[in-house]
């Protein structure tokens, strides 16, 4: 099921990547990467997500501030991070004059992609109503509690009582 849903979030990000001179984009839930279309190795993107999350926590640590976005201008590329609840979208883009437009595009994307993001977060529940999920979970409780054990089969110890 997850394989049929995750690509749609990926496809939405692919479209967002064409919003401007965008070099890469990544979406994360809390500190977990959901989809990365960044031209970097995964370990670097994991570090990027951790550091961006750290920066958000740093500025919001007093409880009085709510970070909306940060924008960093490096010599050849810009890093834009937009925050919305537990979701963070990080983007690499080339043209500084596109920063505000891309920020708006990311916010629109986050509004439109709520269902696909939710599906990516809990793919096993996608497509079921809450009643269906609660009924199914109650029925599954007993079957999940009982787990079969591997039989101990040792041909050299058959019928041996100790």
């Amino acid at each position: 099921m997850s394989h049929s849903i995750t690509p749609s979030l990926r496809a939405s990000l692919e479209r967002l990547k064409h919003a401007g001179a965008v070099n890469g984009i990544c979406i994360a839930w809390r500190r977990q990467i959901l989809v990365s279309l960044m031209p970097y190795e995964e370990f670097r993107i994991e570090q990027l997500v951790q550091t961006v999350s750290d920066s958000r926590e740093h500025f919001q640590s007093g409880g009085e501030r709510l970070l909306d976005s940060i924008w960093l201008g490096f010599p050849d590329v810009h890093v834009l991070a937009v925050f919305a609840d537990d979701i963070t979208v990080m983007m690499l883009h080339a043209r500084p004059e596109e920063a505000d437009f891309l920020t708006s595009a990311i916010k629109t994307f986050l509004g439109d992609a709520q269902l696909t993001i939710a599906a990516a977060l809990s793919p096993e529940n996608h497509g079921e109503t809450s009643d269906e999920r609660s009924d199914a979970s109650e029925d599954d409780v007993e079957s999940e509690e009982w787990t079969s054990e591997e039989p101990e089969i040792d041909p050299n110890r058959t019928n041996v009582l100790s």
Partner: protein
Amino acid sequence: MDASSLNSQSFRRFEIQNGLVISETGQQDADDFAADFQGLRHFAGRIGAILELGEAGYAALHEPEFSFIYTLSSDGSAQPPKIIGAMVSANVSYNDLLGSLQ
């Protein structure tokens, strides 16, 4: 919001010279700017190192009713870069923020 309206939105400009924040709006503003500058520059440095992008020439952040930016400008000499920045009690676009310091 255009750049001309920045003046009416409690726009405060800062400079850092020899490690001291120079402000025309009081010590509290200078302390607030220094705290945000140090924090944002620290994280910009870490992100630049992770992605091998070098040092950020400028960085900004947005809150619903607050905007912050700093820029570093170096003349190529061994002197430390000139640091100027601004804080505005409004959500000002990144382009206007950057334009206000140039």
